[in-house]
């Protein structure tokens, strides 16, 4: 292990980690928004739109992110739709993550017994009050484990951004291997940085999940 090399290229990895996290989080945030909209459309069974959402979810869940990115980044410009690499990364992640988030939210909503809505209604609440005070708070907390799993999944998926020339962690490692042939050191740094990013989120996720599973409300 060449520590000199490691120290020298540490800053490069730091920069890459920032980019990984930044684009990853942007993708996750948009995925959440997309997911919420899709889940709402499916929950309220909005005509026409619900079919479109259904098709989107199937397409997105049954194709790899790398192929989605290749199509967006290299294919679409041929019909005049051009995107910058970072924008493309965010779009790709949101396209993929949107369906995963939608499923997480939808299963949260569906896990709530209809009797909850009915008792809210029989207490005289209108639709908005019912959603705001009864359904959403419960659905959100039920979705937490799936939600956290999705966040980790999406951050992991950013590793394919290297294929569209985004200087993320994976890219940096690949590049250094190609430039200086220091495979062991480059991979070592790569693993360390992914652990630094993902381990805390994973631990947070399992804490939240345990709380919800064993204690539930009122822990």
């Amino acid at each position: 292990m060449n520590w000199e090399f490691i120290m020298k290229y540490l800053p490069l990895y730091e920069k890459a980690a920032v980019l990984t996290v930044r684009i990853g989080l942007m993708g996750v945030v948009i995925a959440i928004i997309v997911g919420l909209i899709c889940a709402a459309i499916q929950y309220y069974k909005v005509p026409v739109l619900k079919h479109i959402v259904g098709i989107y979810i199937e397409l997105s869940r049954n194709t790899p992110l790398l192929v989605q990115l290749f199509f967006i980044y290299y294919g679409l410009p041929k019909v005049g739709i051009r995107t910058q690499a970072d924008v493309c990364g965010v779009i790709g992640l949101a396209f993929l993550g949107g369906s995963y988030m939608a499923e997480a939210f939808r299963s949260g909503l569906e896990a709530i017994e209809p009797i909850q809505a009915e008792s809210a209604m029989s207490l005289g609440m209108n639709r908005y009050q019912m959603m705001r005070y009864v359904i959403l708070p419960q659905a959100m907390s039920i979705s937490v484990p799936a939600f956290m799993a999705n966040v980790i999944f999406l951050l992991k998926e950013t590793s394919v951004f290297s294929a569209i020339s985004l200087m993320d962690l994976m890219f940096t490692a690949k590049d250094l291997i190609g430039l200086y042939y220091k495979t062991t050191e480059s991979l070592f740094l790569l693993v360390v940085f992914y652990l630094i990013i993902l381990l805390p989120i994973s631990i947070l996720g399992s804490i939240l999940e345990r709380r919800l599973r064993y204690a539930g409300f009122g822990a």
Partner: protein
Amino acid sequence: MAEELLKIEHLTKKFEDNMILDDVSLTVHRGEVIVVVGPSGCGKSTMLRCINALEPIQGGTIEIDGQQISQKSKNLTELRQKVGMVFQSYELFPHLTVLNNILLAPTKVQKREKEEVKKEAMELLDRVGLKEKADSFPRQLSGGQKQRVAIVRALCMHPEILLFDEVTAALDPEMVREVLDVMLQLAQQGKTMVIVTHEMQFARAIADRVIFLEGGKIVEDADPDTFFDHPQTERAKQFLNVFTFENVKHKTAEEN
């Protein structure tokens, strides 16, 4: 006779093509306690749900306090506040404490003062023996405690009429008793109630009138003594038979 609080006339209700309630008419006066009995699937729950406009109806009218209620009523949420409902399964909001379960609707829907409602809620909780559970969450309560909270929650909205749908069906005998005792109290206070139950002894004790529903039709409508001791129809007799047993032990004893 006291004023007519609930007036159901020629109610029909279908699920797709199945006739669930078939020309049901029923008037409940203020202060009256009506018990509805009948075999499983005869439409008891559906009837209660129609009164609260939780189900769309296909024919007839339902009036509460002189105002017609249906899913299309403009003032539906107001009308629903006149009707308190308690269901079979624990329908407390699991993410709120007992107290917040009770306060939610009075403060958000009726926009009443939080402090005032809180005072009332604590008094009611005290009366059902659950004062010290105010800050517990539903999952920390037993089934019987949950149902008593659900009753308090409904009461705190000051409804004109209370509907109970097999509120003790999922409980152990002692818990059943806790809940039924609360309902007996309410009856003594003169609350208007429509109760669906399978507890025949309780029905006889609490009812002013017993309604026997079968196949979506009201087959009998009588005072409890008449209904339990001299049911008029063959069907009601059969139904009541389910709850009585003939001794078998003597036979076995002889064989021994």
